């Protein structure tokens, strides 16, 4: 009985940690997604949301802090262009942002190797 309780407790702990990891990953991933969009070309608030919507649901209110954080971290820069008699703010990826993307894809290559290894084992 005790052993089962302990097992249950450990499981519960792991699950909790997974939930925390997921939210943290999601936060980091949003940043990467935004950098990924900008890596394809300069873009503006509305369009970034539109471009991301098919892959993940993101609201403008969620996007704003991410853009602000990236800008303050010097990963992106901004400039304004006139559009329909008002100013539209464009975001442009900088060297630091490109580095961040490369780091991310490198990490995932490692993870993919692990994945391939596991799937490959199963296939045998």
């Amino acid at each position, binding site marked *: 009985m005790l052993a089962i309780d302990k097992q249950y407790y450990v499981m519960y702990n792991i699950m909790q940690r997974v939930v925390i990891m997921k939210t943290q990953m999601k936060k980091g991933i949003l940043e990467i997604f935004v950098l990924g969009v900008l890596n394809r070309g300069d873009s503006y608030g*509305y369009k970034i949301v539109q471009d991301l919507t098919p892959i993940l649901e993101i*609201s403008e209110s*969620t996007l704003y802090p991410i853009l602000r954080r990236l800008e303050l971290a010097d990963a992106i820069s901004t400039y304004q262009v006139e559009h329909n008699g008002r*100013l539209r703010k464009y975001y442009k990826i900088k060297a630091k942002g490109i580095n961040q993307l490369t780091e991310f894809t490198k990490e995932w290559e490692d993870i993919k190797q692990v994945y391939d290894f596991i799937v490959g084992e199963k296939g045998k």
Partner: protein
Amino acid sequence: MNKLEFKRELNKRLSRTFPDNEIKEALEYYDEIIDERVEHGETEEQVIASLGEIPTIVSKITAEIVVNRANSKSVKDAWRNFFIILAICSSPVLVPVAIAFVAVVFSLVIAFGAVVFSLIVATGAILVSLIPMMIGLFASGASIYEIMLGIGILLVVVGVFTIVIIKLYQLGSWIFIQVSKLFSQIVNKKTKGEAYVK
């Protein structure tokens, strides 16, 4: 709510804790988003309703700024963080953190304030007493060398005190920035996940 009302409300909420440039950035962003979506066929009311509650919008921005400022070296930013941290800490989970933070900052201000204040008073007193002392020494028939010696010693004391005051002030500021940084990190950790992720 129309755009004007939305912006006024957002401005009101942000102005409690944010510097002007940060408020301007946020207002411009939402202004642009609303215009953009209206151009694509939605009404102002629809767009604003979909943006979510203003307090939620503000809390997302708040967490962001605190984290960014946590690494700043200026006392001004540390003070600003002090108030923002207090604002965030009004949520029940963080009340103990807020109390600890206020207590630490308060005791810092009192301790350093008292020492610096007493040193400033002492220095002032020495400077003020210089002239009557010179007259006194002169009247008691001391030689010019003795008077000069007396003044010299006092000026050295004043100089040392001034250096001590400046160093103490710097030390106090440094400790304050570190404390602010520490609490920013605690708040960041405690709000992680909710801060920017839906």
